Every structure is written in C-alpha cells, then in structure tokens.
C-alpha cells in the first residue's frame, strides 16, 4: 500500500518536474512546479518527515509559488513560442551538458548508496531533536537567517518599487 502510494508520487513528481522544464508557458510551468512540490510533500510524509513536509507545503508550495505567480502576472510574458519546443533545436547542447552533469551526480549517488549500505539505521528526526540542535549547535546561523530575511524584505521593496 505504502509502496503503491510512493510509486504514484515518484512518477507524478518526475512528470511534473519535466513539465516545468519543457513547457514554454510560464504560468503552466509554475502550476506544474506547484504540483511537483505537492508530490514532494507527499513523499516527505511517506518517509515520515512530517515537519519537513509542512515546511515544504507552507513555504515552498505556498509562499514562494504565490510570489512567482504574482510576478508572472505583473510581467505577463508573450506567447510567441509554441507550448512545447520542437524536437531539434540548438538547445541540445544544454541537454548534453545536463545529461553529463546528471551522470556525474549518478556516480556520486551510487557511491553514497554503497557507503550507506554499511549502516542499517533508519530513524525519523523528531521535531524536539531538531529544535535542540537548532538552538544549540546552529544558533548563530539561525540568528543570521533573521538578518538575511530582513535584508531580503528591505532589498526586494527597494528594488521593485516604482521610483
């Protein structure tokens, strides 16, 4: 049962991610990205990481994608290209490079998988443990993110406002 759900989420996440890459309409691509993030949320729930799933749902699928859709609305890009790209274009260089990087990543993944086979631990990360480590080991980076967010807010308003 869990395996079937995971398989559906796996295929759905990959399909919507491919749509994000290849669709030429920005709005459709953004909607596909939201679907992809929802699929990833499901995967986080299946692998028992509910806190990360909530972060993914609220901040990514919620806040960030709303920002994207607002900017798409304001920019309103023209639709002079076809919805899906023609098969033979100059962009095959991009495909080759991406496949090369993907193979590099695959090699690293195989290495990491082989190493991870040694330990058979699996444990869910409890929110309490996460809070402990956030407020002790990572206290300085945690405080610095507040400064980063403040800079981002002020900077975004400053850049985007009409002068």
């Amino acid at each position, binding site marked *: 049962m869990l395996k079937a759900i995971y398989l559906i989420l796996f295929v759905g996440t990959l399909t919507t991610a491919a749509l994000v890459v290849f669709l030429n309409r920005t709005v459709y691509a953004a909607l596909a990205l939201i679907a992809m993030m929802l699929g990833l949320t499901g995967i986080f729930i299946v692998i028992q990481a509910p806190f990360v799933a909530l972060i*993914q749902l609220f901040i990514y699928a919620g806040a960030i994608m709303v920002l994207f859709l607002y900017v798409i609305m304001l920019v309103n890009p023209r639709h002079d290209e076809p919805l899906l790209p023609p098969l033979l274009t100059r962009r095959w260089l991009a495909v080759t490079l991406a496949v090369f990087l993907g193979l590099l990543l695959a090699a690293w993944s195989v290495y990491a998988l082989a190493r991870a086979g040694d330990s058979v631990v699996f444990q869910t990360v409890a929110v309490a443990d996460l809070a402990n480590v956030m407020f002790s080991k990572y206290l300085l980076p945690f405080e610095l993110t507040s400064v980063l967010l403040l800079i981002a807010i002020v900077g975004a308003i400053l850049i985007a406002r009409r002068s």
Partner: protein
Amino acid sequence: MGGEFFGWNVILSMLLFTLGILAVLWQRNALSVFMGIELMLNAANLAFINFAQRYGDESGAAIILFIVTVAAAEAAIGLAIFLRLYRQAAIIDVDKANQLRG
C-alpha cells in the same frame, strides 16, 4: 517503514536535480530559469532529509530550514530584480539582459 525508500529517494533527488540543471540551461525565460533553481533546491532538500534519516542525524533536517529560508530570500530578491528589469528595459529573456548600465 519509510527506510525502504532510501535508494529510490536518492534516485529521485538525482533526477530532479538534473531536470533543474536542464531548466536553467534550456529555458531562456528568466522566470523559468528561476523555477529550475527552485527545482534543484527541492532536490537538495529531499537528499538532505533522506540521508539525515539514514544516519540518524538531525543536522540534515536543520539545514533544510536554512535552505528554505535562503530560497525564500532568493526568490524575493530575484523576482524583484526581474520585475525591475522588465519595467526598465522590457526584457524577460536572460540572454538579452547583457548591458550593465541603468
């Protein structure tokens, strides 16, 4: 429970990251390039929580919070820059934004 999907999660995060790279290289629309970056960040999140659970280390989960925070800040600033670029020069194609002057 949950641990059986470890290998599949690694593969999924790898494929998502590759698709993100492809979006950045393939698309010329600035917003689509940005979405490719978000795709890569999501793939990194999946890999982090996956290995955090495998090794029983909550640092991997903590770093996801930082990634999400930085992603939100990056989205706000980046989209503001695109908006400004579009208003001033009516450019949305990243190849055409090649003049470094206001």
